């Protein structure tokens, strides 16, 4: 059957996350970006919604089961509030979800309860590399087997909360394919930049460069490793959902503004040039939302073309987010260019998606 309506449980979750996005994340977004800091309370309140906890089985300290569909619904809703806040709240998932998806039994037992049962704690992951042609399937960071361990060498960029992380998953090139490796905070040869990354947007989120020189690490999934494509696709649909949330936010601000602002004696929304932009924004958002839902559903149901679907959703979402957030600024006119107005930050965040892979996962 085709069906396009979240179930009751998912709807409750959407409502709860939506409230947090609307009442907590949105009002905090501007100052957080300007001050380069997210209030701790804000993040722990988001953590307490229990999104990650609900996707981990009881045996590992959670209270539910992972569903990519539920995940993308929640991420869209939260990202509608603020992207930096969302990525912060979800940072522990960057570690926990790959462990859940590809970890060995021992790894799951060792890490999941610790992450799930406690307060929000910075477990994170490092995927992005500082290169124009960054490609998650052809990484420059390398891993070499040495006995039962692996030796990592390379550099990573945009690693959220790396500085305080207890442990992180580092993705590296092992014999031509990508694999994740668990690296502990105290590992010798691991260095984390003093300075935080400075980027066009997402400045509220502390992100760092890291460097590895002969770092000894443990392979995710143990000796036999894991299916990286599953992790990559879970990242792609999460990113796509976040892009939908960001775009929706810009669209909504622009729509409301267009109904208030007057020019030539009418509301600017009454001018077709503006109304059509809004219609197209709404249409493209809906298009990518559905594509993302379908990709997530295919992942949950192990469909053959699930990974292609996730790739297409991610690729389409990146373009859509740019188009929509650009028009958000356009509809505000000169005021859209001023940092006081929310569409400005949304445009900077909207541009990030092609490279933000690896900062969200469901």
């Amino acid at each position, binding site marked *: *059957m*085709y*069906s*396009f*309506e*979240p*179930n009751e449980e*998912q709807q409750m979750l959407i409502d709860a996350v939506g409230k947090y996005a609307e009442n907590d994340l949105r009002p905090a977004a501007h100052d957080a970006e300007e001050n380069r800091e997210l209030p701790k309370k804000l993040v722990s309140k988001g953590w307490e919604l229990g999104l990650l906890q609900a996707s981990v089985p009881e045996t590992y300290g959670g209270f539910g089961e992972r569903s990519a*569909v539920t995940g993308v*619904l929640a991420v869209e809703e939260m990202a509608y509030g603020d992207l930096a806040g969302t990525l912060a709240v979800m940072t522990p998932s960057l570690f926990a979800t790959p462990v859940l998806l590809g970890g060995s039994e021992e790894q799951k037992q060792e890490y999941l309860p610790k992450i799930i049962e406690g307060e929000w704690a910075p477990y994170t992951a490092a995927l992005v590399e500082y290169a*124009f*042609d*960054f*490609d*998650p*399937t052809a990484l420059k960071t390398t891993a070499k087997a040495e006995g039962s361990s692996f030796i990592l060498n390379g550099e990573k960029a945009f690693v959220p909360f790396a500085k305080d992380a207890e442990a992180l998953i580092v993705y590296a090139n092992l014999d031509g394919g990508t694999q994740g490796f668990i690296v502990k905070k105290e590992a010798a040869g691991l260095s984390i930049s003093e300075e935080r990354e400075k980027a066009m947007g997402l400045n509220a989120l502390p992100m760092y460069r890291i460097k590895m020189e002969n770092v000894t690490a443990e392979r995710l999934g143990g000796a036999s490793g894991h299916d990286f494509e599953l992790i990559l696709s879970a990242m792609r649909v999460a990113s796509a959902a976040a892009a939908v949330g960001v775009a929706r936010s810009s669209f909504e601000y622009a*729509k409301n503004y*267009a*109904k208030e602002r007057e020019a030539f004696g009418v509301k600017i*929304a*009454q001018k*077709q040039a503006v*109304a*059509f932009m*809004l*219609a*197209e924004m*709404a*249409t493209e958002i*809906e*298009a*990518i939302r*559905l*594509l993302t*839902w*379908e990709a997530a*559903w*295919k992942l949950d*149901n192990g469909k053959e073309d699930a*990974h*292609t*679907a996730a*790739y*297409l*959703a991610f*690729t*389409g979402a990146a*373009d859509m987010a740019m188009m929509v957030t650009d028009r958000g600024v356009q509809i505000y006119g000169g005021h859209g260019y001023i940092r006081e107005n929310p569409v400005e930050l949304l445009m900077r965040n909207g541009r990030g998606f*092609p490279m933000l892979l690896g900062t969200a996962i469901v």
Partner: protein
Amino acid sequence: MTIEFEAPKPLVNMQNMLQTVAENMMRSTSREMDENEHSIPWDYIEFMHTAMRSMGGAGGLAPVEEKPKEGAEKRPPIGYQKLAVQIEMLAWGDVGYYLVTPGGGLGAAAVQAAGTPEQKAKFLARFNEEKPTFAAMCMTEPGAGSDTSAIRARAVLDEKTNEWVINGEKIFVTAGDKSFTEYEKLGKGFIVVWASIDPSAGRAGMRAFVVEAGTPGVKITKLEHKLGIRASDTASISLVDARVPFENLLGSPTVEKTTTGFKGAMATFDATRPLVAASGLGVARAALEFLKEKLKENGVEIRYGLPRQKLTSVEREVIDMEIMLKSAWLMVLKAVWMADNKKPNALESSMSKVKAGDVCTKITQKAVEILGPIGYSREFLLEKWFRDAKITDIYEGTGQINRLVVARQILGYSGSELR
């Protein structure tokens, strides 16, 4: 309810069956029909009529209501979903052919949307009879296209005979000829004519009338020559003192001054827009598949999974096309799923049409561009699909009109607040 994307079995089966029809009956003669405008593909018409009757219903754009088997669990209705899948598949074969699939088309859809139960029973039964039968809808006039409130056709009640007397000029009537001209091989069809019973009342005065084939005073005055969809006839129809019985006015026979009449027309569009979108997407899929096939023959494989920076420009284009096509199709599915579940879908319906209009013109145009001479040559069907696709962005509300509908919906504006 839940979120689910598993195609229901009956849809998959139907799709497979129709693919055979598309390949064997449509594609093989597509070119011939394109080059012999105004010829009628009787084989296809008769075959489809027989096939649809045996499947339990031939009604064109109105969904067949399924009677649940005794004892069987009641399943959610999928009538509109079925139609969308069916139309997409037929249009993948040849959208011109699809438009001459017998059944009620837009005419029956209007009866379905605006008619009383008695009228539905009376006018819709014919599509399941022995001979294939057509119906059409006449809204557009030389001076009134997008602005349907400007129609000048007039209906006056002759109280002595209790008949409506209709005068007017209608143009661009899809299947107008097959619905009105009495061909030996066809059953008796009808056209639904929109006319005003009170020109001073604007839209509130508009009503739809069923005009039976052969009604005196009604003439097919022209068959258009077109850019594409040449297998489909597009007729001009003139009505001079054409008389129809009182009860052929669709909807309530009491003639109050309300906008109900016009709302009837709009309800027709809510139901049919995603279906028109589906037809455009069928053409787009055909074009995209052809493009990929030709690229493959020439050793170009699309490397899914790579970041944009690493892709060739052709790969990028193809990937973008796929994103467009897949997401547009999901929008159609959502709109018809809403229709099946009786959820108001004016917004989703128009959005799917906006998107499909864009997507199918872009995909067909880009495919022709990428394939160069192969795309432009009449040796292949791609150049035809390019011409066929364009109509999707024009009829059933142009891309602009559907953007207006979407914008009004999201802004909460009336027609007078946003024109």
